[in-house]
């Protein structure tokens, strides 16, 4: 293989080609042959370098010089100057632009990564990567320098609250489990993450599994547990695989098993895989599932701390709660408590979805406002539309509106406003979302996931869903809205577990803030956001329509007719209101009306 002392990369992007890039390449080859340099200098065609508008352009290595605006005529001069005399030709040189796209700005302002500190930075399948970033040093500190009581005190002092949604103080839960007499106790990790659109736990399990394992081992030391279960939903096969590998590696290094770090502390872990039931995210149903029973919740007391898996004291915490523990031990409770509000300490991960410019996973300190999350961290509403509402807490949470945008992120503040923190799902809605339809969507989910054990939830959620469907279909009658409200209150009050208790929340909160939309559906048979199919119709605006026939060709039920270059019409009796005509029209001639 010839050893080239220099490479010339000529941009062959269509724009540069149009400006004569191939002529430049040919001229280069000819000139290099003429000068006897073909064995030393390689000419390559490459993709877009960046300044095609000034093209043709090329990069010369190893100097990394960027030349633009050259023609075939300039080539002999360039070859002589640059390759024979070794002088860079300044007049063709492009001033180097910054690589950072200034339009995007820093990707995530205001983010603070505690739980997510290692995700995307380490190889999750290699425990040594985790060790290199102080992995398992917290465990060393705990076993070497602290008593179980001191560990519990530290976690309590930090103010860490359960990140699964309920927000129960983690330290206090550990303390309660420790107090219960017994030789056999269990640590349980809730990795079921069933909320639609929530994937915070998935990211941690796939990207930094050891942070969770280390947190569990520390917890086991504190409460006196000797075995643990990570209950991971089956819909996360990669997370399950990553956990299994990580547990095996941790065992190999002696962090799990007998005589951990040379002491008489024993602890081991296994992964239990779920089977698609949302209700198994509820801790008593989860524990039933671990024991091979049908995933159904049971009344409490007795709480799992007293009587959980196999009837033994069991401490259950969410993935994120455990993932915080090593950092709290290493950096101290005061450090953790310095972030957040008075009652909600630390950081929280959120999966921001919906109509925002930069959806994705973020981690922010508690106390940040919803406005900052939506408009600063997530880039605001996309396509220039207007903000309407945000759903927090998943299918058990409520909708918050414009008036709540300056609410600080805090467990109590969100509950008082009619929603909840939940596990961290945040769905942002703009003016194209119908709030009745949103409530129906969430109820559809929770109704399907109801385990059926208690009547209020089993029958109640179904009746609520039927009423919502009826209203969305344009068949709502006088009295339906009042009936809906009453039903929601009864189901919330009388259901056995959080699923039934929380299922009516989206309905109640949308009724509270957007009652006019419900009333429009029932009394005027209109959908203000133009979403509910039975209440909308599509119309082609004659002056704008050019008669290109694209909509007619794409209509799945052939409801559009019209001659070429004549305005088209939609037969509303055939139209199924799928909206395809509006999507394919290049002239914005199709409108949706209600």
């Amino acid at each position, binding site marked *: 293989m010839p050893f080239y002392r220099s490479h010339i990369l000529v941009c062959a992007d269509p724009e540069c080609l149009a400006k004569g890039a191939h002529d430049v390449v040919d001229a280069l080859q000819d000139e290099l042959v003429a000068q006897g340099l073909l064995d030393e200098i390689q000419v390559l065609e490459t993709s877009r370098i960046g300044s095609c508008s000034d093209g043709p352009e090329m*990069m010369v290595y190893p100097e990394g010089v960027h030349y633009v605006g050259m023609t075939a005529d300039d080539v002999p001069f360039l070859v002589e100057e640059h390759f024979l005399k070794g002088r860079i030709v300044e007049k063709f040189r492009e001033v180097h632009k910054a690589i950072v796209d200034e339009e995007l700005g*820093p990707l995530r302002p205001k983010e603070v990564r505690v739980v997510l500190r290692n995700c995307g930075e380490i190889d999750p399948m290699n425990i040594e990567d985790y060790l290199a970033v102080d992995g398992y040093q917290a465990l*060393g500190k705990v076993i070497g320098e602290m008593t179980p009581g001191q560990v519990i005190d530290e976690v309590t002092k930090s103010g860490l609250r359960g990140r699964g949604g309920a927000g129960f103080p983690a330290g206090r839960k550990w303390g309660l489990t420790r107090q219960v007499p017994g030789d056999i106790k269990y640590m349980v990790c809730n990795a079921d993450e069933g909320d639609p659109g929530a994937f915070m736990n998935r990211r941690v399990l796939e990207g930094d599994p050891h942070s969770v394992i280390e947190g569990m081992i520390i917890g086991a030391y504190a409460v006196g547990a000797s075995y643990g279960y990570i209950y991971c939903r089956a819909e996360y096969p990669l997370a399950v695989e990553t956990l299994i590998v990580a547990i095996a590696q941790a065992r190999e290094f002696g962090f799990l098993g007998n005589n951990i770090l040379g002491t008489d502390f024993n602890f081991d872990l296994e992964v239990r895989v779920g089977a698609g039931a949302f209700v198994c995210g509820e801790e008593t149903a989860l524990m039933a599932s671990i024991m091979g029973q049908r995933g159904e919740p049971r009344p409490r007391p007795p709480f799992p701390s007293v009587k959980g898996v196999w009837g033994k004291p069991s401490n259950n915490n969410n993935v994120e709660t455990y993932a915080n523990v090593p950092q709290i031990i290493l950096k101290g409770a005061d450090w953790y408590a310095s972030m957040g509000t008075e009652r909600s300490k630390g950081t929280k991960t959120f999966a921001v979805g919906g109509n925002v410019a930069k959806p994705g996973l973020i981690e922010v300190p508690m106390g940040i406002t919803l406005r900052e999350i939506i408009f600063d961290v997530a880039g605001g509403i996309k396509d220039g539309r207007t903000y309407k509402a945000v759903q927090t807490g998943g299918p058990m949470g409520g909708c918050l509106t414009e008036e709540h945008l300056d609410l600080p992120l805090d467990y109590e503040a969100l509950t008082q406003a009619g929603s909840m923190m939940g596990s961290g799902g945040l769905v942002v809605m703009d003016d194209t979302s119908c709030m009745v339809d949103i409530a129906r969507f969430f109820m559809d989910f929770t109704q399907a996931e109801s385990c059926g054990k208690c009547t209020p939830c089993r029958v109640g959620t179904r009746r609520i869903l039927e009423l919502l469907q009826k209203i969305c279909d344009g068949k709502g009658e006088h009295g339906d809205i009042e009936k809906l409200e009453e039903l929601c209150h009864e189901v919330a009050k009388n259901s056995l577990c959080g699923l039934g208790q929380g299922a009516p929340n989206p309905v109640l909160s949308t009724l509270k803030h957007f009652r006019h939309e419900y009333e429009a559906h029932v009394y005027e048979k209109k959908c203000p956001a133009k979403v509910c199919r039975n209440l909308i119709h599509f119309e082609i605006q004659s002056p704008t329509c050019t008669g290109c026939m694209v909509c007619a060709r794409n209509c799945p039920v052939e409801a559009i007719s019209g001659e070429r270059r004549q305005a088209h019409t939609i037969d509303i009796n055939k139209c199924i209101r799928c909206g395809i005509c509006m999507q394919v029209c290049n002239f914005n001639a199709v409108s949706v009306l209600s």
Partner: protein
Amino acid sequence: MPAIKSLEELKRVREEALAKKQMKATPGHIQVIVAMGTCGIAAGARDTMKSILNFIEAEKLSGVTVTQTGCMGMCEQEPIVQVIVGDSAKVTYGKVNPEVASQIMKQHVQLGMPLKDHVLPI
């Protein structure tokens, strides 16, 4: 690897792991990291990874390690590939299909000049 049985051993293992990690970031050595979380895989990261490994084999490159990592939270930009040349700053690329991956390998890894397109500002 025999189990760690004391705090001194734990500290030593950490030093060794840190040293190994720093060794990868020395001049003459290039790290290519592919995000292989579920979002990445759904976007085609396995094909991207294959393209990178095939390139290395075909060009018989040495001094290049290819590793994987988890989700970075910018799931819309997947597949994501990061390149660290020696001890210089990490460059992160988004929407890296197998074709873009080959370009990155050719231009950035082989010839030392980062691409201007596809770069994510983090």
